[in-house]
């Protein structure tokens, strides 16, 4: 096998809630081995988190999106049950429309299945994006454990990290973890020993089928902080090896992204030989053994920087908040939105061939010379300076953003002068993630803007540059 991993990117939302917060609210915290969980912002989902990880992986690989010829997206929580989300993800990233695309879902093994399929496909430059944000009913242990995160891998020939062996095994065990059609929340029968067997036996069989060798880290499926350690003995692993690739204690259960985030963490820590052992209900397991031949670039952005109370957590997850008002919001038809995708997704502005000024969006008369010209279309890098800003306080949001504000509170809106390759700037209005003041440097991030007629619209917002 010559195809391997060239670079890794990982992302987790910045907000965290803690075991203590759950304990204060419920009297107990039912997800052992978890100290805190990552909580997505109200406008984040698996697609936007995937974009975050993918941009970091491409940057780490020093690769352009236009060079990608294979794109895979894996998640148990795709924002839509039906629609090929690799098309939107590809548009957000700028991946060519002739790239091969695959979606993997329906199992927490989806992330490793996507990696295995990419290794089989042997693309020149593949991008495997795994993002997840599982949910359970608020009272349920699976919700106490639920976290969020994403990892992305640039895959191709002559890679620094090679796959040395791999295997998969299944054992029929229904009922251990499932999500019914139409439901947002995972469930399970909680049958003690049966559940433990359902978890351990496929994993042990898959690991038994590979040449494990002397692994110094093992990224094992982490539905909570206890399950992988319970299965360690059956896999012939010790607790330290599992701890070397564990993310569940600080991110929570990241479902299909659990093992991919473990791989990212272990490679970042310098692991030389690594086991990736994922589990999915049904039940089945993948085992992949990686070996690092030389340095592999890893861009991790998984640290939390804000702890939130349980009440804030419930708001962010939309458990106790308002929905979009009956009156509806500003009507922007899907075809209208579609025409603006190059701007929403990739900040494509128009440069005037006569005066050199930039117009955003690139339509109508040039804002520099008022001439009706054919603009030269230029994708801007996405960094800029805030020129005017305010914060829309509680209750003040337009109806289309009432639900967002109910969930995540006041938000900023700014006019940003975006950098161009010339001395000129291109100005555009943007919602602000967190906050930014006049004069601050900001960068674009992709978020869900709003949903109308059932269609979620994704586009850029800005966040203060680090």
């Amino acid at each position: 096998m010559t195809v391997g991993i060239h670079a890794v990117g990982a992302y987790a939302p910045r907000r965290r809630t803690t075991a203590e917060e759950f304990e204060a609210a419920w009297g107990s915290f039912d997800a052992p081995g978890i100290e805190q969980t990552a909580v997505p912002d109200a406008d984040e989902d698996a697609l936007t988190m995937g974009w975050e990880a993918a941009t970091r992986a491409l940057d780490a690989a020093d690769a352009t999106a236009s060079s990608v010829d294979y794109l895979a997206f894996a998640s148990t929580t795709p924002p839509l049950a039906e629609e090929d989300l690799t098309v939107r993800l590809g548009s957000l990233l700028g991946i060519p429309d002739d790239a091969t695309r695959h979606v993997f879902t329906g199992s927490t093994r989806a992330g490793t299945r996507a990696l295995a399929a990419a290794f089989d496909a042997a693309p020149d430059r593949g991008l495997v994006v795994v993002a997840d944000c599982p949910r359970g009913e608020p009272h349920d242990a699976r919700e106490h454990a639920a976290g969020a995160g994403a990892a992305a891998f640039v895959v191709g020939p002559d890679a620094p990290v090679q796959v040395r062996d791999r295997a998969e095994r299944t054992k029929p065990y229904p009922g251990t973890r499932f999500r019914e059609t139409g439901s947002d929340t995972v469930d399970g029968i909680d049958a003690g020993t049966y559940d433990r067997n359902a978890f351990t036996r496929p994993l042990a069989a898959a690991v038994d089928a590979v040449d494990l060798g002397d692994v110094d880290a093992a990224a094992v499926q982490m539905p909570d902080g206890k399950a992988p350690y319970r299965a360690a003995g059956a896999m012939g692993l010790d607790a330290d090896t599992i701890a070397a690739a564990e993310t569940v204690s600080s991110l929570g259960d990241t479902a299909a992204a659990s093992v991919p985030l473990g791989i990212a963490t272990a490679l970042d820590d310098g692991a030389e030989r690594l086991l990736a052992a994922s589990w999915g209900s049904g039940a089945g397991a993948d085992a992949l053994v990686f070996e690092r031949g030389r340095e592999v670039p890893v861009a991790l952005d998984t640290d939390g920087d804000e702890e939130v109370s349980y009440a804030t957590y419930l708001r962010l997850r939309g458990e106790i908040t308002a929905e979009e008002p009956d009156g509806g919001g500003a009507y922007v038809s899907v075809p209208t939105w579609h025409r603006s995708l190059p701007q929403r997704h990739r900040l494509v502005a128009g440069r005037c061939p006569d005066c050199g000024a930039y117009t955003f969006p690139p339509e109508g008369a040039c804002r520099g010379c008022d001439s009706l010209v054919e603009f030269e279309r230029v994708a801007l890098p996405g960094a800029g300076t805030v020129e005017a800003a305010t914060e829309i306080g509680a209750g003040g949001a337009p109806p289309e953003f009432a639900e967002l504000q109910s969930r995540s509170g006041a938000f900023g809106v700014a006019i940003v002068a975006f950098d161009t390759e010339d001395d000129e700037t291109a100005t555009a209005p943007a919602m602000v993630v967190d906050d930014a003041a006049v004069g601050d440097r900001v960068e674009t991030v992709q978020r869900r803007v709003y949903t109308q007629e059932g269609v979620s619209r994704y586009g850029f917002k800005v966040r203060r540059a680090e």
Partner: protein
Amino acid sequence: MTDAYVVGAGQSDYGSFPDESYRSLFRTAFEDAVESVPDGMDPDRIDEAVVGTLGVGGRQLGLSGPAVTEHVGLHGVPTTRVENACAASGYAVRQAVQAVKSGMADVVLAGGVEVMTDASGDAVRYWLGVSGETEWERLSGTTFAGVYAQMASAHMREHGTTREQLSQVAVKNHANGAKNPHAQLGFECSLEDAMSAPTVAEPLTLYHCCPTTDGAAAALVVSEDVVDEFTDDPIRVAGVGASSDRVGLFQRETYSGVPASRRAAEAAYEASGYGPDDLDFAEVHDCFAIAELMAYEDIGLCEPGEAGAFVESGATKLGGETPVNTSGGLKSKGHPIGATGAGQVVEAFEQLSGHAGDRQVDDPSVGLTHNVGGSGGAAVVHVLEREGVAR
């Protein structure tokens, strides 16, 4: 080309009137305007009508002009509805002036109406955003207040303008509005009230923002040929200026001023032969406190960047060098979107006629009205004078 004159102007009370309709409010304004004509006017003399309204609530979006003129008995009179957001009826007055000056009409009714308070909070929030640029500006999450707050942020950054100076606009306009029986918020407010009110959109507090309002206003514009039939003390439209701009703030050349206002004022001054120093008062578009400060600069009452210090100096108070918004302005008198521009002309007419009661400016001869649509996508300025008295 004939001159145009305002011989009558009137308005309904501004406020929240669940028992009134847009038509009944317009009727009140119409009757008040007709009654204000010094030597009387038979409504049959009206040749043409122009009605400004945005149509908040969507109650009568099509043919909203004829819907109010037929209601007041102007059956058969050619009527046009003008939509230029908050500058709708300022532009209606301008069109009346154009109709008279073109010679096509001798007597034109220019009015406006809006009903904004009878809808649900969510519906009002929807309608308040319809005059911003929809696809990009609004979908960045901003609101009407949000866009002006962005302008305030830029003005503060560029010129050091303070929240206290913004608050002084509110204090002044409420002091004036308390003297106006038509005002919606006819009470005084202290600097402390304005400073400590809840934030609507940083840095704007509740007292830096105008209310939503029901109301109507109307003016009667006539030609030189017939003006003597209606008054011995004619008030001439000495100059009109108007301008448009890009609808989205982010597309403009500046965020700390309103270029359309500046261009409209320059044109109105040039047409009238007057300049800012000649004004005895001005009614300016203060939908937000920052809008009044920018208006000082845009219409030339002070140098660019000095509006904060200018309001602080007291120059724009009643009794000051150039009293601004003696009616209470949009802030205290109220802002029924489609009626606002015509309502400013009502105040100018009352001031120049000497009928402004407790808020009367001492013997004024020249006044200005300044009406802005949206955050500056349209602006219109009128300079009015008492003929034979001015200069």
